[in-house]
């Protein structure tokens, strides 16, 4: 009797989930499955496709241009992930110490602002700042560094780092805000105890703040690593992958392959590889940073 009731309840639960599940299947699972299917064909997007087996996947790993795009995405992790998280920790710790002052509010707003601005607008602004006559070069010239001025986004050695700087600027605000929220949850008694034991600001930071923020850091790293690997808009607006593929990333390459070159199969294969790469990076981060106490 009891078992029957429970079973009926389970059924009712599934019924409530059904609308959401249907949407998930139609708009997430099905496109994913179709992408996997397309990746096994050679298809121009219009005519009848021909079976291609794993040929597309072989090309993803053997075509130096495609593989270089994947490597570029991995290099971008330094800028999109490491810089915002480390800098975000420092900024959040500083803001927390001056939390009561009006300056903290201003600082929070200014740092979060890039998150509010549409990425396309940010990309255009930065391409002006980084142009050969832009503000960055003007400042460098003003302090006597004219010799290193250049068109930052048009130079082979600096295009990818320049894109990375834009990404770091965008993501710094998000990380700072998340970490700041995490810090406000830490019991102030811990700090008081530490101070009584004679700990300084650095000791406080490494012994209390950092360990307590494990989960927040995990979220920051996951979000920013995914943003680096799947980057598209910043690159598309600022360099379009140029010069000479120096800043090409998989997201942009997939778009070019599918819509300009009409190699839907190869584009899908690269998309599947990218998805696998994102999952392969995100899962260990989740595992490393999950809360072990619970």
């Amino acid at each position, binding site marked *: 009797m009891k078992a029957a009731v429970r079973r009926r309840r389970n059924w009712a639960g599934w019924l409530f989930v059904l609308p959401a599940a*249907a949407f998930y*299947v*139609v708009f997430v699972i*099905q496109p994913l*499955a*179709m992408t996997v*299917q*397309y990746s096994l*064909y*050679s*298809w*121009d*997007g*219009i*005519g*009848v*496709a*021909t*079976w291609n087996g794993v040929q597309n996947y072989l090309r993803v790993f053997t075509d130096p*241009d495609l593989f270089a795009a994947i490597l570029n995405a991995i290099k971008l992790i330094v800028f999109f992930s490491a810089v915002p998280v480390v800098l975000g920790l420092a900024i959040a710790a500083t803001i927390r110490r001056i939390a009561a002052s009006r300056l903290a509010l201003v600082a929070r707003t200014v740092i979060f602002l890039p998150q509010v601005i549409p990425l396309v607008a940010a990309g255009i602004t930065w391409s002006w700042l980084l*142009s*050969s006559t832009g503000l960055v070069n003007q400042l460098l010239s003003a302090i006597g560094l004219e010799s290193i001025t*250049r*068109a*930052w*986004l*048009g*130079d*082979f050695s600096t295009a990818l780092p320049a894109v990375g700087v834009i990404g770091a600027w965008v993501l710094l605000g998000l990380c700072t805000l998340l970490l700041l929220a995490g810090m406000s949850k830490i019991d102030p008694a811990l700090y008081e105890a530490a101070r009584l034991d004679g700990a300084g600001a650095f000791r406080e930071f490494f012994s209390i703040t950092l360990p307590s923020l494990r989960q927040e850091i995990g979220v920051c790293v996951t979000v920013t690593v995914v943003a680096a690997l799947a980057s598209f808009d910043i690159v598309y607006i600022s*360099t*379009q*992958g*140029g*010069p*000479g*593929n120096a800043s090409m990333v998989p997201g942009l390459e997939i778009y*070019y392959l599918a*819509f*300009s*070159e*009409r*190699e*839907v199969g190869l584009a899908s294969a690269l998309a599947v590889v990218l998805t696998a790469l994102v999952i392969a990076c995100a899962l260990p981060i989740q595992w490393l940073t999950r809360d072990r106490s619970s």
Partner: protein
Amino acid sequence: MVVILGGSLAAACAAPGSGNAQPTAAATSAAPMSAAPTCGTEPITLKAYYETGFPITKALSDEFAKQHPNVTWDIREDQFAVITQNAPRVLADDPPDLMRLPQVSELVKNNLLKNLDDYAKVFGWDQWPASQLEQMRLAPGGAVRGEGSLYAMGLNFSMTGVFYNKKLAEQIGMTTPPETLADLDAALAKAKDAGLAPIAQFNGGATGGLAFPLQDLMASYGPPAPINEWIYQKPGATIDTPSNLQATQHLEKWIKAGYFWKDVNAVDYATMMSRFIKGDGLFMFNGDWESGNLDKQMAGNIGFFLMPPAQAGGKRAAMSAPLTFGIGANAKNADCAAAFLNWVATDTQARTIGVEIGGSHPMGPADAPMPTVAAGSVTENTLAAGAQIATDNGAMDFIANATGAIYAKSWTPNLQKLVAGEQTPDGLLKSVQADYQSQVKGG
């Protein structure tokens, strides 16, 4: 829900694309057309898909509707890049009567465009200078361009060459346009010595604008025919020829001499135009679609000449391409759209609009009346250049149009590398040829 899911899953098991209605090559009508098609007298709505930023299409459409009161237009506009991406889908799902076309090989291969041979016969387009229509002809299956059936029609055809700033030219003592490549080299060196920027050009992002001077140099060192064969995908054609190598080496010499802006790899087309108009740059390799604009913005200060040949007295050549429009294979009002295309080339008023607003030479018979243009304007220069190219038989399509992806994926990165000193002239041609072969084979 289950039904929808089941249906889409079933569809997912078949090969992609097999579920779409596949247009088949329309059998040419059994009996040839007896009379030239018209738009009739009944109210008719022409569905058009145009490129944003070309006022000529709108002006021509308005004038056509004025002369044919039963015709109304339903016009949709997009950027060219968007049209390129959407063309196959739009033509398959919702074919417009008239559409601005990107590179057509793939569209013809998939039977998405109407074969215009019957119209050409009945309207007499086949009596026009053959070079006007050559680029829009495709062999069966769309494999080779430049021969076969007509699949598109131009509203006018553009002409490229070298624009120059007359005031800056005076400054270095250049009173007449260069007659040979050596003259041009001398002028460039003088400009550099005088502290001027010798060449205004773009080469940033995904748009390798050095393809303009490069192809001009190719045509300066060698004949245009082999270049066209390569663009048309004739079997065995190669871009890696001795004269093209000389041309690429010459371009490299210009780069190393500092004739281009230092940040040329970060300059896009719009930036180049605004800098050149402001007086930053003596020469600019570009096309007559800017003639009207330059006449307005640099009135009296702008000149144009065709790329000079390497040998004195040699023939001139130029990239020259029609502004192509096509008719959907399953378009509802194909006859009326064809009548419009014929009207654009033959109606006096339409030809005037083509020159005054489009800035380029109209299509049509060689002896068709030409509208008068202001004496001394750059538009007059470019129209005269068009006539010389016709006598020298020097029209070329763009090397960027050889395949759908060759520009973005091969020319652009390689030219950017050449600027940065990361590619050699020989390596550039070999790399482009390798990409071309894989694209021709794969596509």
